């Protein structure tokens, strides 16, 4: 045992020395202070277990020392040594916290009692200390218990799963919420059991991440991993886990604490978001229109597949670049785009003309400003309306023809009667002038003394019969014109029969091949015919004679055109290529129609002619050679009488293709 150190404050050196010696014998170590002031300093600078002191001292008195010490903290065990008759001082000292007191007796007996007193004091101090230690331990354990309770309650009510593991990464604690997230009880999750709850596809990566992490946990800030847990019923829960290391006072890792959050809803929202994005872009991509988004600087923000198809530029290459550079055709629209964004109104440019592969095409450009707050930009929609524009042209054509037809119906009767006078009279005239065997002629000739032969000879010599023939021919052409014009007016009698268009076309070819036109000097037989007929063509409800009229008309026009281009020159030498028709028949199942194509390799026509080709009285033939009604009548027969479509494609110098579509099902 360490020797007890005692500070003895005594101004009487002899007495002090005596006490020192006596105490030393009792096994105590005693330092002497000559007065209160020195004693106070020594106590504060040294390590003393007990203070013994005299009341009467220079510097501070004993009571003053006690007062000063008491003001500085807990008092050490103090023995107050007072003279006889100073018991009040002793009592005062005891009140102030001194441990005990001794009365100086003259015979010095108090030297003998002092060690006992000190012993007692020390014992008492020891007991007090022990009690305090016990109380402190109790307090600490109470505090720990409270901290643990706090943690337990916190972790119980926590919306996130909480776990604690030891330094080996084995789970030692697992809260209720974690049971819900993982579908495993606390016991099941303990140690490394938790790994069984992880979705098989995620298990490997989570485990390797976890072990890799805790082995190097000192280096890492915290652990973070995402995975799925699957409970026994197969319910999947998405979770994100985080962990940090716990360290003791020596900075040694004593374990890990972490939380696991259920992010299933978040994941679903994410998936939904993703799905929605896909769905939206799918919608945008499915649109038959070019849809392009631009920001306020005219840079591309959105680029759908139709835009890619129209430009050949992919979305990746387009987004972020100026539209005017990516899609030069729209450069002229940028002013309108700015205007639309500025006014927040839709702007449009309809029926723009552009040239694509040398072909004139039409498009509608519509600019929609984005009007949601905080979004600056516009969506540009481009629709190819070429077919529509052509259809409209055709409809205008039909309208024109119908009005021609209406007019013709009114005129026909008025024209036909004088025409009948003229032609029928001319017919009788030619019979009276040229028919030498007609009895009435012979009788009349005889009466005036000439022969019918002489009369006919005169008429022939003077060209009278030729003149009459001219009258008849002209009359016939007039009748044709009226008849053709009338076909615009007549409503079709809905045909009750269906026909095989292939054989109809073949019969028409035969008919055409007998058609040898002296004036145009063409011979149908010299034309090559290529037939490209689909097999299994459906029968088509139609008026066969009218369709034949159309086919014959187209074939005749084509033959004449090819004659100009490919026939013989004035010396009978063949010019250029051999005339050739390509005839195609196809069943267009989706459109529910039969498509007839008649392609020639004649001179073709330019855009201006192509546009007017079906117009009544439009002709490219020299005056007197064509009425300009053939194709318009054909067009009318197909579109109005049969509910079909007729169009023409042509490349100047290469040829012309007429396309006729007839509905396979009769329209009600």
């Amino acid at each position: 045992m360490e020797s007890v150190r005692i500070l003895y404050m005594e101004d009487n050196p002899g007495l002090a020395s005596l006490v020192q010696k006596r105490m030393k014998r009792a096994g105590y170590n005693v330092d002497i202070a000559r007065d209160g002031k020195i004693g106070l300093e020594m106590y504060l600078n040294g390590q003393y277990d007990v203070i013994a002191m005299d009341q009467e001292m220079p510097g501070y008195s004993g009571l003053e020392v006690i007062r000063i010490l008491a003001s500085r903290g807990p008092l050490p065990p103090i023995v107050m040594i007072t003279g006889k008759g100073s018991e009040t001082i002793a009592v005062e000292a005891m009140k102030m916290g001194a441990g005990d007191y001794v009365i100086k007796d003259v015979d010095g007996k108090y030297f003998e009692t002092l060690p006992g007193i000190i012993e007692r004091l020390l014992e008492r101090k020891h007991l007090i200390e022990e009690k305090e230690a016990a109380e402190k331990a109790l307090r600490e354990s109470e505090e720990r218990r409270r901290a643990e309770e706090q943690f337990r309650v916190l972790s119980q009510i926590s919306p996130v799963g909480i776990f604690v593991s030891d330094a080996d990464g084995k789970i030692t604690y697992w809260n209720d919420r974690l049971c819900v997230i993982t579908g495993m009880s606390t016991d099941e999750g303990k140690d490394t059991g938790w790994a069984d709850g992880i979705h098989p596809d995620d298990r490997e990566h989570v485990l390797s991440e976890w072990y890799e992490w805790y082995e190097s946990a000192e280096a890492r800030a915290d652990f973070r991993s995402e995975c799925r847990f699957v409970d026994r019923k197969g319910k999947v829960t998405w979770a994100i886990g985080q962990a940090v290391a716990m360290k003791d006072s020596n900075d040694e890792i004593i374990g890990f604490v972490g939380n696991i959050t259920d992010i299933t809803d978040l994941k679903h929202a994410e998936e939904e978001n993703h799905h929605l994005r896909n769905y939206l872009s799918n919608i945008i991509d499915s649109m038959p229109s070019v849809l392009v988004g631009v920001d306020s600087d005219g840079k591309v923000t959105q680029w759908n597949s139709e835009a890619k198809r129209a430009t050949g530029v992919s979305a990746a290459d387009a987004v972020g670049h100026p539209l005017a550079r990516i899609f030069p055709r729209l450069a002229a629209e940028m002013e309108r785009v700015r205007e639309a964004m500025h006014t927040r109104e839709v702007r449009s440019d309809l029926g723009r003309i552009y040239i694509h592969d040398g072909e004139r095409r039409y498009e509608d450009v519509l600019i929609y400003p984005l009007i949601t707050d905080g979004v600056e930009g516009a969506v540009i929609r481009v629709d190819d309306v070429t077919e529509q524009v052509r259809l409209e042209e055709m409809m205008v054509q039909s309208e024109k023809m119908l009005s021609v037809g209406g007019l013709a119906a009114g005129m026909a009767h008025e024209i036909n009667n004088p025409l009948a006078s003229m032609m029928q009279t001319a017919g009788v005239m030619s019979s009276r002038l040229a028919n030498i065997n007609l009895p009435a002629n012979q009788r009349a000739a005889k009466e005036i003394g000439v022969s019918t032969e002489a009369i006919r000879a005169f008429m022939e010599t003077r060209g009278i019969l030729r003149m009459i023939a001219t009258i008849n021919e002209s009359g016939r052409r007039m009748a044709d014109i009226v008849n053709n014009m009338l076909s615009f007016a007549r409503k079709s009698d809905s045909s009750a029969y269906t026909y095989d268009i292939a054989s109809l076309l073949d019969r028409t070819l035969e008919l055409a091949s007998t058609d040898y036109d002296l004036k145009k000097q063409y011979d149908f037989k010299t034309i090559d015919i290529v037939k490209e007929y689909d097999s299994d063509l459906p029968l088509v409800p139609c008026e066969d004679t009218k369709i034949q009229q159309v086919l014959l008309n187209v074939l005749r026009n084509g033959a004449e055109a090819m004659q100009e281009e490919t026939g013989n020159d004035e010396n009978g030498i063949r010019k250029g290529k051999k005339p050739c028709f390509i005839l195609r028949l196809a069943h267009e199942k989706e459109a529910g129609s039969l498509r007839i194509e008649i392609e020639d390799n004649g001179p073709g026509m330019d855009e201006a002619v192509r546009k007017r080709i079906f117009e009544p009285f439009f002709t490219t033939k020299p005056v007197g050679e064509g009425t300009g009604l053939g194709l318009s009548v054909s067009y009318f027969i197909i579109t109005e009488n049969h509910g079909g479509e007729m169009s023409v494609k042509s490349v100047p110098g290469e040829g012309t293709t007429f396309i006729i579509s007839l509905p396979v099902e009769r329209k009600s």
Partner: protein
Amino acid sequence: MKSILIIDDEQAVRDSFADYFEDRLWLPIRAESAEDALDLLETESPDAAVVDVRLPGMDGNDFIRKAYPLNPETAFIICTGSPEYLVPPDLMEVPCVSDRLFKKPVTRMDNLEKEIIRTIRNIHGKEVADE
């Protein structure tokens, strides 16, 4: 000699028919309206009649409806310049009315004559095969 009634309000047309048939040894009887023709039928019984449809006053259809009961052996041929005209169904059923319609201008008078003869033969129940 067979007689033929020509009803047409236009004189030149009427004459051209009459001249043709006269040369073919018919006896033409001209009328410029249905009313005139009906008057004529009180005294005449022609073998055939070429009837225009659009006439001043009574039209050609009504004329035939009135005339054929009077002269059931007369062959009626309708000849019109109206493009939309069709022989009315009630007249189509009458055997002495040709169902073949002739449109003016008639460029082939010989066909008209043949049809007239065919219709006359029909009325008399004769074979048509040799036509």
